[in-house]
C-alpha cells in the first residue's frame, strides 16, 4: 500500500476523533437551541467556567480568593483539602445546575416572548459576564486538570497498524476516551429525551411552546432543565479539552469550532451534531494533509467554515435540521 494512502488513513482516523471533540461542544448548543430557540453564545464560556470550577473544587481553592484577600487583607487561597475527581465532578454538576437556575431566574424569565436576536444578544452579555466571574472566582492562571483520563499514544493501535502496514498509527488515548464519553453522552441524552417525563416535556417545548404550555408544561422548569443539561455537556467538553491544554481562558474559544459543525449538522439535531463533527473533523484533517502544504498550511480553522458553507448552499437547515416552512 502506498505510504501516502497509509498516512491518509491515519489522518482520517485522527480527524474522526477530533470531530468527536467538536461535537461535544456543539451538543450544548443544540440542546438549548432545540428547546428554546436561543443560540447560546455563552456555551464555550460555560465549558471554561465548568472546567475552572472543577479544578478549583478538586484543588480545594477558595472561590473569589483574590477578591476576599483584597477586601479583607487576608492571604487565603486554599481550604487545605483536596477533593477526589468524581466528587469534584458531582459538585461541579451542582454548580452548573445552580448556574442554570440563576440564568433562568435573572435573565431569560424576563425575556420570554422577545425576538430571537434579543435572546442571542443576552447570551453574548452572559458570555462576557461569565468570563469575568470565572476570572474573579478562580483567577487567570493555567490549571492542570487531572481526572484520571489516559493520555498519549495508544500502543495497541500503534503495534497493530505497524504489523498491518509497516507504519504504526498515532491515536491519542485521550481522543479515544472522548469518543467513548461522547457516545455514552449522546445515548443517555437521546434515552432521556425519549423515555422520561422530563424528556417528553423538553420535546414538547421544542416542538411548540404554546401547545406545551396549554397542556400544563412549565416553560421555566423545562428551560432550567435544558440549561442544566447544556451545563453538564459543557463540563464534559471542558474536561476533554482542558485535559489537552490545561484549563485556561482559551477554552472559551472552542465554541468557534462548534459553529461549522452546527451549520453542517443542523441546530436542532443531536445525531446531527455528532455526524457534523465527524465530517468537519475528517474534512479539515484531509484538506490540511493533502492541500495544506501547497498553500502554507494552517487551513483547519477556515476550511471548516468553507465546508459548512458548501453544505449550507444545498441544505440550509443542515444535514439533520428541521426544514422550516412558513406560510405567508
Amino acid at each position, binding site marked *: 500500500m502506498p505510504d501516502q494512502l497509509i*498516512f491518509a488513513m*491515519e*489522518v482520517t482516523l*485522527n480527524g474522526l476523533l*477530533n470531530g468527536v471533540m467538536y461535537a461535544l461542544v456543539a451538543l450544548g448548543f443544540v440542546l438549548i437551541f432545540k428547546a428554546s430557540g436561543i443560540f447560546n453564545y455563552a456555551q464555550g464560556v460555560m465549558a471554561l467556567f465548568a472546567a475552572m470550577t472543577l479544578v478549583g473544587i478538586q484543588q480545594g481553592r477558595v472561590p473569589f480568593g*483574590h477578591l476576599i*484577600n483584597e477586601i479583607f*487583607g487576608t492571604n487565603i487561597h486554599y481550604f487545605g483539602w483536596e477533593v477526589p475527581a468524581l466528587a469534584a465532578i458531582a459538585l461541579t454538576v451542582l454548580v452548573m445546575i445552580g448556574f442554570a437556575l440563576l440564568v433562568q431566574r435573572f435573565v431569560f424569565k424576563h425575556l420570554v416572548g422577545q425576538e430571537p436576536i434579543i435572546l442571542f444578544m443576552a447570551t453574548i452579555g452572559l458570555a462576557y459576564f461569565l*468570563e*469575568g466571574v470565572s*476570572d474573579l472566582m478562580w483567577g*487567570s*492562571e*493555567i*490549571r*492542570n*486538570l487531572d481526572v484520571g483520563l489516559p*493520555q*498519549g*499514544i495508544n500502543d495497541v493501535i500503534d503495534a497493530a497498524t505497524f504489523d498491518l502496514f509497516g507504519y504504526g498509527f*498515532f491515536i*491519542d488515548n485521550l481522543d479515544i476516551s472522548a469518543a467513548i464519553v461522547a457516545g455514552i453522552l449522546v445515548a443517555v441524552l437521546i434515552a432521556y429525551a425519549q423515555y422520561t417525563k422530563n424528556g417528553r416535556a423538553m420535546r414538547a417545548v421544542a416542538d411548540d411552546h404554546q401547545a406545551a404550555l396549554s397542556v400544563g408544561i412549565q416553560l421555566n422548569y423545562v428551560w432550567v432543565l435544558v440549561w442544566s443539561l447544556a451545563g453538564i455537556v459543557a463540563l464534559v467538553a471542558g474536561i476533554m*479539552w482542558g485535559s*489537552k*491544554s*490545561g484549563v*485556561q*481562558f*482559551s477554552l*472559551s*474559544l*472552542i465554541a468557534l*469550532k462548534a459553529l461549522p459543525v452546527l451549520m453542517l449538522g443542523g441546530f436542532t439535531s443531536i445525531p446531527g451534531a455528532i455526524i457534523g463533527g465527524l465530517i468537519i473533523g475528517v474534512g479539515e*484533517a484531509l484538506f*490540511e*494533509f493533502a492541500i*495544506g502544504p501547497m498553500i*502554507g*498550511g*494552517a487551513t*483547519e*480553522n477556515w476550511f471548516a467554515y468553507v465546508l459548512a458553507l458548501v453544505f449550507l448552499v444545498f441544505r440550509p437547515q443542515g444535514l439533520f435540521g428541521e426544514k422550516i416552512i412558513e406560510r405567508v
Partner: protein
Amino acid sequence: MKSLLTMVAAGALAAGPALADLMIPDLSYRTGPFAAGGIPFSDGYQDYFALLNARDGGIGGVPVRVVECETAYNTERGVECYEATRGDNPLVYQPLSTGITYQLIPRATADGIPLHTMGYGRTSAVNGEVFSHVFNYPANYWDAASVMINVLLEENDGSLEGKSITLLYHNSAYGREPIRTLETLAAQHGFTLNLLAVDSPGQEQGNQWLTIRRERPDYVLFWGWGVMNQVAIQEAINIRYPLENFIGNWWAGADHDVASAGQAAAGYRALNMNRLGDMPVFAEIQSHVIDAGLAAGDGTNLGSVLYTRGMYAAMLAAEAIRTAQEIHGVADITPAMMRDGMEALELTNARMEELGMPGIGPEFAVSCADHGGTGMAIMTQWNGTEWVTLSEFIAPDDSVTQPLVMEDSLAYAAEAGIEPRNCTDS
C-alpha cells in the same frame, strides 16, 4: 469657618501646578486567552517601578506613575490603549505584542513617543537610522533564530549538512518573523527547513504533530505563544518526540508553558533573553513592595520566568530615564528626552550588580544606528520541576542577521516615505 478655610486651601492646591511624575503606560493583558503570559510580565514590570518609588522616591527624585491599560493581547484594544494614554506625557510604550507594535510604529514615531519592543515586534527596528523611535534591545527574533542554529551547530560538530529542521510557528506576524532568517541559514548551512503553521490560538495542532511524527525532523524549532505552547509540548510528549530536540524561543519557555505537562515535559529546551534564578532585587521587591501591599499582583509570580523578564524590561526603562535625566539635566523628562536616553543607554555588568540583578542580561550599549543590543540569549531547559540554565549568553551570527535588517528596514523606509537619518556624525 474651619471647613471654609479647608475648602479654600484645597482649592488653591488643586489650582496649583501638577506634581511632577514620570508616566509609564503598561499595556498589559490580564484577561483573555493569553492572560497567563501577560500577568507575570505586567507584575514584574509594575513591581520594579513600585520598588523604585517605595525605596528611592522614584527616579532622580521624581516618582513613577504606571498607568495600566488592558489590551487582552488584542491589536485593536492595544491601539485604543495607546490613543487613551498618549496625551498623558507617556515616556515609553512596551506593547508586549508584535501585532500592536506594528500598528504603533508609525503612530508613536509621528507623536515622538519611543517604543520598546523587547524581544518581539518588528525585527528590523534594530536600524535606528530608519526607526528613530523604536528600540528592540537586548535581542530580537532573528537573533533568536540565529542563536538556536548556533547552538545546534555546536552540538553537531559545526555542521548541519543534511539535517532536517522544522519550524512550528504561530500563524501570525509574530510567528512568521524568523522564517527569512532561517531560510538564509538553511541555505548557508545545508539543512532542510520545513515550515508548519498553527492557527491562533493554537488549541489544535494534531495534524501538524502527525506530520512531525511522519517526517521525524532532527530538530523542531518553536515560535509559540499562549495555549499553543502547552498544547505543543503535550503533543510532543504524546508522539514521543525527543524533547531535548524541541526548542522554543523565549516566548515559549515560561513556567506556565510546562506546568500542565509537568515531569513529562522534562528535557524541553527554550531560549531566554535574561538570566533566571534568585537575585538580590527579589528580596527588595518582597520587602518594599509585596509585603507592603504595593504589588501589582498577589506576589506569587515573583521570580518566575516572565516576572523576571517584566522586571528586566522595567529596569531597562528606568535606566534609560536616568540616562535621559543626565543628558538633559532635568528630572521631569519628556518623551523626546526619553528617546535620547534610550539611544544613549549603556548597561554594564557593574551597573546590573549595583541594581541587584547581577548578569541578568548581557552588557550592551545602544546607539543612533543600532537599537537592537547584542542579540545574545541563553539556553534553558525544563528539568521536570524548574527551568535550569544550560549556557552562558550566546551570540547570534550578525553576518546573517545584519544584511536582512538593512534590507527590510530600507524597504520599510521606502514604503513609508522615511528619509533615513545619518548616524555617522553622532
